Every structure is written in structure tokens, then in C-alpha cells.
């Protein structure tokens, strides 16, 4: 089995010249159960970095204390907030798309033997089954592509929002198994 690609990525990682996408590939690679010995020694590092991002030592007690300090006791109903469009949420996660891309890259590089070692436990990543090679990109630049994407999403969003009398399909809110 040829780990040249990963080894090259790793070298560039130490030199801090990897892209976020390449770093995701590395993290995904190092989250496998079985690794070759010469690479296994780096596994704790990548695993640590992922788990370190998920520590949440401050809980509800902290919230209560802070809210009291600013004069908003926790049991008081929250005031109506003017919400700006961009709400900040903290989600430390691999973007599903990158993880899927990483999976494809790893399998392509390491061959089919790697597939059994590489478990995608996240069901949603297995569902998409389209052949992306069957059509060609229209846009040269991501900015143009984003404009088109925005326009498309806006149309669909408008439709989802509009009240429809014909919207009487059963189980509308449920995603059928």
C-alpha cells in the first residue's frame, strides 16, 4: 500500500503550507482504526486536536450566574431580540462535504483495501449517490458560482415559504424512512 500522498501532506503540514481541505484529509486519515506503524505515531496528535475542540466545561451553572450578574435572572422570560441575519453558533465539526471529499481522496489514493479500514459511521455521508463526473461546471470562479447558487436557493426558499392551498400532502413535516 502506498502512503506517499499522505506522507507528502504530512510534510507540508509541518511546514504549515497545507490548505484547510488538506488538513481535513489528514484528520480523517488519522481517525481510522488501523494505521501503518510509521504513521501511527502521529495519530494521538490529530485525535487530540479534534477532541480538544469539543470540551465544554462551562455549563448551565455558569449561565445562571452570569445572567444574574447582568440582571437577567435565568427564569425570566428572554426579551424579544432583534436578530441579525448572521447568528453566531459554535459548532466544532468537520464540514460534511469536506469529510466526504476526504473519503473519496483517501480511497482513490490508497486503493480498495483502505475502504474496509475506513469506516464512515455517519449515515448521511453515504446517502448521496450521484455521479458528479456526468456534467461540467458552468462557472470558472466560485464567486460566480455562488451568485448562481444564491439565486437558485432564493427561488426554492420563496416557494417553501409561500402558503399553498395545494400543500395538503400527508406527512409533509416528516422525512419518510
Amino acid at each position, binding site marked *: 500500500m502506498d502512503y506517499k500522498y499522505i506522507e507528502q501532506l504530512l510534510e507540508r503540514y509541518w511546514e504549515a503550507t497545507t490548505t484547510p481541505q488538506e488538513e481535513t484529509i489528514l484528520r480523517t486519515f488519522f481517525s481510522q482504526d488501523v494505521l501503518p506503524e510509521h504513521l501511527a505515531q502521529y495519530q494521538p496528535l490529530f485525535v487530540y486536536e479534534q477532541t480538544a475542540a469539543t470540551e465544554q466545561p462551562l455549563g448551565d451553572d455558569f449561565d445562571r450566574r452570569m445572567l444574574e450578574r447582568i440582571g437577567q435572572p435565568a427564569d425570566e422570560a428572554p426579551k424579544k431580540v432583534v436578530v441579525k441575519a448572521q447568528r453566531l453558533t459554535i459548532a466544532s465539526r468537520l464540514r460534511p462535504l469536506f469529510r466526504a471529499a476526504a473519503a473519496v481522496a483517501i480511497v482513490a489514493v490508497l486503493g480498495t483495501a483502505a475502504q474496509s479500514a475506513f469506516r464512515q459511521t455517519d449515515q448521511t455521508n453515504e446517502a448521496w449517490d450521484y455521479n458528479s463526473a456526468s456534467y461540467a461546471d458552468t462557472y470558472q470562479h466560485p464567486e460566480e458560482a455562488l451568485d448562481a447558487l444564491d439565486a*437558485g436557493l432564493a427561488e426554492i426558499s420563496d416557494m*417553501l415559504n409561500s402558503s399553498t392551498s395545494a400543500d395538503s400532502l400527508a406527512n409533509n413535516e416528516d422525512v419518510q424512512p
Partner: protein
Amino acid sequence: MRQILLTLLLVGLPLAALAQQECDFASQYMRLYNDEAGSLSCNTVRPLMMQRILQLDEVENNQEAQDIISQLKSIQILTTKDPTAYAQHFEQAKDLADRNSKRYRPYRSNNHSAIYFRQKKKVIVEIVYISQQRHSFSIISLTGNMTQDFIKKLAHI
């Protein structure tokens, strides 16, 4: 083999039987109904370009945009240059989806638009949006790994 496929096509059998590999609705519609003049055209964003979109500053710094776009794999927007054909395409497209109801489940519709989902188990892998307005006809195929939560978010952008 081609003979059999053509026969199946005429009988209007499920699209999945025709496709060697999975293909989204817009692509299928193009294949079936584009004429020699090429009056149908499709704008495409493939998975790799979708990733590049995610890396743009304005998307990286916008959690909402990230939440939505990160679940998408591709988008295809199909339109036609022929204004006399809007109504026909609209009916034809809906018909194609309805004939393949095992694959495309109707989600919502009104006088001028319809949305279908293609699902695998609990995941929505494609949203098909068919629409006829006064000055346009379009089919949008949005593919990805989407959930019901995603639909709610999409409705509120």
C-alpha cells in the same frame, strides 16, 4: 440493448432503470427533452466548485451560509430560451416527476411551482424544484445530504 432502452423510454418506465449511474432530475430532463436547436440549457455547480464556494471569505465568515452550503453537493439550473414553451415544459417536467413517484416524492406544489424530494432512507439527496413564471421556466436540481432541519433553514434564508 439500445432498442430495448428506447422501448422502455416510450413506455415511460422509471428513470433509474435507464441511468447507468445516478443522475439528477435536471440532467435527465435535458437528455430526454432537449431539442436539436438546444433550446434548453443548464447551469451547473459541481461538488468541487461547491467546496471552493465554501472557502470564499464571505461564506467562511457566515455561519448560516456555511450551514446550508456544506450540506450541498451540486446545483443544476435548467432554463429554456423559448418563451412559447414555458407552459409545456412545466407540465412535462411535473409529469416526468409524477411518473417516477417512487423516486421523486411530491413535497409541495401550487399553480406555478412544485417541489419534489428524492430520498434515501432518512436523507434527502435531491430537491427538485419546477417552476413556471410569466417570463421564465426553470428546473432546479439541488443535490446533497440534506435533512428536514435543512429544509427549515432553507425556508428562512
